[in-house]
């Protein structure tokens, strides 16, 4: 039995190695543009506005055409990532990267140089909700079910002994801003959204709302490459991204992105997201 297990493990390793080698060979033979897939965290127009300079910057530095793409929704993006293996470069949520890495062997090169990402529970200032327990029987606005904020919120609710599918009503909205606005306008009783987006909300909205609870923190969003991208290209990409803050054009671009910079992703840095990723039910 042990021998069989060892044989299977070796066979699996060999298959992976052969597949990786084949993919590397295929990548080496690619002359077309690299497809840079962006998770549709905001509308397509805003996504292009915010991230097309990053794609252009990398294209110029890498001396290779990079084409920005996104998807109509999170599910499509995950399917294209994991099933269709459409993207050469990937900018996605931490838990979705975990899935891409696990299923399609995407490798994180860098992540946003911030301590971590967490979701917050927000209610209007005058709301009777003062704790997670007060959310029972109420409506909680969240974005796409696959979104990080949603899964972190669900995990935090379950941690507090609240069943998000029974004890309260989750109301899906198109975006984080839509969730916050629904709470602000009283359409829902509370909203769960990523903290950086809450921090960038209009001051009048933040003044009229308050944070009830926070979720656990997870590593910030990574930029990963497909397994068929050769090591040299991947290393150049990582170096370019890490060193952006060291040059004028890079700093300007970081200011546009509202990020301090990128740091190299550490091996196993996103392994802790296995639990929340598994809750998505995507295999």
């Amino acid at each position, binding site marked *: 039995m042990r021998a069989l297990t060892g044989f299977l493990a070796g066979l699996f390793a060999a298959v992976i190695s052969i597949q990786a080698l084949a993919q590397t060979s295929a990548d080496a033979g690619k002359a077309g543009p690299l497809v840079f897939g962006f998770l*549709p965290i905001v*509308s*397509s*127009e805003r*996504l*292009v*506005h915010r991230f*097309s300079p990053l794609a252009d910057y990398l294209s110029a530095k890498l001396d290779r055409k990079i*084409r*920005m*793409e*996104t*998807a*109509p929704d999170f599910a*499509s993006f995950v399917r*294209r990532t994991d099933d269709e293996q*459409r993207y050469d470069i990937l900018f996605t949520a931490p838990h979705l990267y975990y899935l891409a890495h696990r299923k399609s062997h995407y490798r994180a090169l860098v992540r946003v140089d911030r301590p971590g990402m967490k979701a917050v529970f927000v209610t209007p200032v005058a709301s009777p909700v003062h704790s997670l327990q007060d959310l029972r029987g109420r409506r909680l606005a969240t974005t796409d079910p696959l979104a990080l904020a949603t899964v972190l919120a669900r995990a935090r609710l379950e941690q507090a002994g609240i069943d998000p599918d029974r004890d309260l009503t989750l109301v899906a909205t198109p975006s984080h801003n839509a969730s916050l606005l629904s709470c602000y306008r009283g359409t829902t009783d509370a909203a769960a959204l990523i903290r950086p987006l809450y921090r960038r909300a209009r001051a009048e909205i933040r003044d009229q709302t308050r944070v009830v609870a926070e979720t656990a923190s997870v590593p910030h969003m990574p930029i990963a490459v497909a397994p068929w991208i050769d090591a040299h290209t991947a290393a150049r990409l990582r170096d370019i991204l890490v060193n952006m803050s060291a040059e004028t054009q890079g700093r300007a671009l970081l200011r546009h992105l509202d990020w301090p910079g990128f740091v190299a992703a550490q091996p196993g840095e996103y392994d802790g997201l296995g639990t929340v990723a598994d809750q998505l039910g995507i295999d």
Partner: protein
Amino acid sequence: MPLSPFRSLRVRLIAGVVIIEIVMVSLLVWNNLGVIRQAHADRLWNTAAGMLELVAATSGRYLVEVDYATLEEYLRNIAHQEELSYLVISDRDERPVVTLGQVPDAPWPATDGHPFEVSDGVLDMAQQIRIGNQPMGQVHMGFSLAQMNRSIDSARLRSIAIAVTGIVLTILATVFIGVHLTRRLGRLAAAAQRVGAGDYDVAVPAEIRDEVGTTAAAFNRMVAEVSQRTRHLEESLARERVIEETSIDGMITYAASGQILSANPAMHQLFGYRQDELLGKPASLLLAPVSDGKDAVAAYADNALWTHTIDTRIEVTGQRRDGSCFPLELSIGRVDISGEPLFAATLHDITERKLAEHECHSLLEGNRFLIHKSLAVQEEERRHLARELHDELGQCMTAIQADAELIHELSRDRDEKITTSASAIVSVSSRMYDVVHSMMQRLRPGVLDDLGLLAALEEEVDAWQARFPQVDCRLVSEGELMGLGERINITLYRIVQESLTNIAKHAGATRVSLQLVRQEGSLILRVEDNGRGMDTEHPGRGLGLIGMRERVEALGGSLSVQSAPGEGVVLRVSIPVTE
């Protein structure tokens, strides 16, 4: 005479209106077709441009999301335009990702700027799809012009049908109205022809009060007015003809060139020319050629006399056909007819008047001679009488006075009665002598013969001053006054004497000035007073002034009186003297 169809007002009116209508409707149709074509083209262009803009603006997100199925569904929902021939969305690699309709063969046809520039029947348009400044792909669209062309053809057929209908209706209306109008105008024309032929008993109906009716009424009034004026003109011409033919004065009319245009029968009697002989001849033919320097009218014996001596009467010398001359009084008038001057002259034979004037002048001269003669005789008689009074009666009075004084001396202290009688005789004889002396002075001042004119005048003035001491009377003289001659002396003396007498009788003056000056061959006497004056236009009936004038004119001199009521009198006498 029947009118040519092409000169008929009716035909020209109808033909003109129809031609104008055809031209105007054709232009209108042509313009409308242009407008319709432009409107259809603009509509298609605006529709195509709007749809292209809409697709380009909304397709970007689908391209960046690589959601081509949704994009195709979206495009099928909005691309309902029947004229849309094809719609293709290409990605950033120019690969068609959504295709609707009949896609043209590669390469893409060149885009058209306007439907009018289309040559293949399809309006091809293209636009880049962007999000912000990022190109996401391209949209190609084609719109068929077939429907637009069908609409234009339909509109063209409708316009032409409407135009043809309008032209036909216009022709019918024009013919109807033209015939109606020109029928009444024809009546007017016929009536005008009758009037032109001299028939004034014509009237056209004017019951309808439109333009033609108003014209007909005006025509009737005009015919009545012309008829009346023609009648008056004929009467006037008849009167003038009678006057011309019966006049004893010659009458001619002539042009500015002097050419005679007409002559009345009297011209034949006056000049001996027949009337037809005078026509066309120069008017100067009727005047005698005047010898140089002997007749002031000579200078006018040409055309200038006949054209420049207007509205005045002048005396000229006429010449008959036989060459004999006779005096004429010529009167010329001018009238401008249609800008051309026409002259009319009346020639009056003044032979008898001239003879009468000559006889009158002779009588006047004789009368004046008799007056002068009588004055001379009167003066001579006065002088003779004065001399007789001085020589005979004066001597007798002196002798009587001397004897009476002797008797008075001898009878003194003897017989008082004789002495008294002698004194009375002395006194009476003395007064008688004064009276006689005064008579002699008035008849003939002796001082005039003894001491000359100036002394006589001074004595006369002194005597007058003595009688009228309230009047300041002064005599001033200049120049040599001796040796002027008996006639001049007595004439001036009598004028001064008469003037002072008149001033004393009528003037009521307070100042009298007499000035006698000899200068440059003439002797000037000026008598001026500041009295009440006189009206020189209506002098009195006295013979004083007449006598003075006769005396002066007998010496070849002149006498003038200047005066006005309240402004005194100035009498001025000028007599020529030989140096």
